[in-house]
């Protein structure tokens, strides 16, 4: 299994192309907020930028607190969200230790689904899909490396 990682954020120029792409392509909205990855300056533009993505916790505290099963554990880390089951209680947002979940004014949650569709939009290659150790993809990769 792969997860979205942000290993080269020191290269970020703050163009927001990744989060705008996520909002547009994954969440079907035009927005700065309703995105699985959000960019902010780390204390003013002179200090560079940081990303707020889901860190793919395993087990995920947001899934653990979800009272309706809208959030469930994703294999390899992170969550799978079924919006139809969500009652807009906001417990997921409160449980997230790194503020990766955005609740819109109606309480609808937005979180990264680790699809990687934001990656091609980054002009500086800040983002990367990484294989989670011990998952099927990583076993496949070890085989290839050995052959």
């Amino acid at each position, binding site marked *: 299994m792969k997860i979205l990682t942000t290993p080269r954020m020191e290269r970020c*120029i703050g*163009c927001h*192309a990744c989060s705008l792409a996520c909002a547009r*392509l994954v969440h079907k*909205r*035009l927005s*700065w907020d309703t995105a699985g990855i959000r960019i*902010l300056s780390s*204390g003013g533009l002179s200090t560079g930028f940081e990303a707020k993505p889901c860190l793919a916790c395993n087990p995920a505290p947001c899934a653990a607190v979800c009272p309706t099963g809208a959030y469930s554990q994703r294999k390899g880390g992170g969550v799978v969200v079924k919006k139809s089951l969500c009652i807009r209680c906001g417990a997921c947002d409160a449980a997230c230790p790194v503020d990766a979940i955005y609740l819109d004014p109606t309480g609808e949650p937005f979180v990264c689904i680790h699809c990687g569709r934001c990656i091609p939009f980054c*002009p500086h290659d800040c983002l990367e899909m990484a294989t989670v150790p011990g998952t099927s993809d990583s076993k496949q990769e070890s085989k290839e490396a050995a052959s």
Partner: protein
Amino acid sequence: MIRDDFRVLVVDLTSGRGTVESLEGRSVHVGGSGLAAALFERHGQMDNPWNDPGQPIIFAIGPLTGYFPLMSKTVCAFKSPYHDQYAESHAGGRSALALRFADLDALVVTGRADRPVCLSIGSRHLEVKDVHYLWGKDVGTTGKLLRRMFGGAGHRSILRIGLAGERGSAMAGINVDTYRHFGRLGGGAAMGVKNLKGIVIQGDGTFALPEEKQYAKLFQKVHQQLTDTEMMHKYHNLGTAENVAVLNKLKALPIRNLQQTTDPEIDGITGEKFAERTLLRNTACAGCPVGCIHVGFVREKFMEPNQYFYRQVAYDYEPIFATGAMLGVTDPFAVLDIMDTVEQTGLDVMSAGVALAWATEALNRGIIKQEDSLVPLKFGDAKTYTGAVRHLAAGTNDFYRLLSQGTATAAAHYGGREFACVLGQEMAGYATGEAFFVSQALGFRHSHLDSAGYSYDQKFEAVDLDEAIEFLVKDEQERVFLTSMVACLFARGVYNKELLAECLHSVGYDTLAETIPEVSKGLQARRWQIRLATGYDPASVEIPGRFSDVSTWKGPINPETLDRLRQHYAKRIIELGRKE
């Protein structure tokens, strides 16, 4: 939000309250420049002075802002303290996307607060906050405090003014998000006179995507074109600073108050040297993957043995021309130091550099005395210039108070008009020839970006009067549509009429997409009508003698051609602005 009308927030600082207005006419006013003009007609007072509390300051975005990359700029319109006529200034940063996500096509601020305030707006809030304790604070400190006072890091835009704007200097700019500016024609004073120290725009709204199926595909195509092609290489690589070496080689770089157009010493401040010695990183306007903003550093030893602090300063071609070449300062760190002082005091960098270049020559010639300049201005002496910048922003004495209202204003009092490098306002950095001089001197914004006069000079060996005028008029017409979108003009090579029509279709603005040439003509005419109605007389514009003394790669400027071109263009502008 795709809609045929415009959603405009009008805030009256006198009462501290706002109203949301709807304005019809997307297919006529478009957005940006066109929308600002329509809003000035509605809220502005043509005959009243710029500092009348009723005069509006307008911020407008376009129909494609947020929907496509590099549709990332905002038009600011106001009655200018520089010439007391209608004016526009453009900036990027996050202001455009913040307005889009605040669900506004434009913000109009009228009235005057009874004490210094900061206006904070978003898609669900409006607050006019007392910030009297920020009055007198520099631009950097103000930015830091406003960031702490208001929420929404990353998804907001913070506009603020410095001392120059508070004092009503005609050279005061508005700083946008640390590294961008509504620099020219005194927008900072238009805020200052309203006691408006800052504006925080929170982009916290969310919208449905356009229903048209081709939108997603077209976005992908445009994004690729803008990032893959060589077209944007210049802006991403050395940035506009690349022009320093190019223009120096061409003998078209204004140096030491335009006494020279080339000098081997300029090799110290080329874009290549800035990148090699001072560049820390690039940054971008929100919604632009190009990242043309180049941030350099200056460090200063403040204590022995090894105690330093450092500051980050964004550079571009124009600031290097104005505070480097024009002042004869050829060390990149010294240039950044002057730029940073300009930045912190809230002056427009081009106006400040060019004004101090004139003051230096005026002092050399004995037209002004050191008791006027207070510091011994000398080309190449960076330290005296940082001091002079502070005097210019503060208006320390009569000389600096007059100079900060424009170099021509100071020259009218002290003399030295013939060597004042003023083309409508302090010149931009292109000594390319007659077409550029005339296009900036008479152009709508008195900007090198009104129309590509510098490009005409470089393309054609000799000036053909009729052809040159047609070139300027047609180019302005195309640009006014782009600045109504509001596209970054660096993308003008990508966003041609056909692509703009495709983009407009893809989000549902079909009528506008099919009428771009006619609409552009209308926009151009209406902007001129307003400018003329506020007192502009293009026929009375003078081009100082210094511009006739210039020699470029094509040889000396032809004063007769320059004057005939000026007269023809003035006549044409009057025709353009004539109401049918």
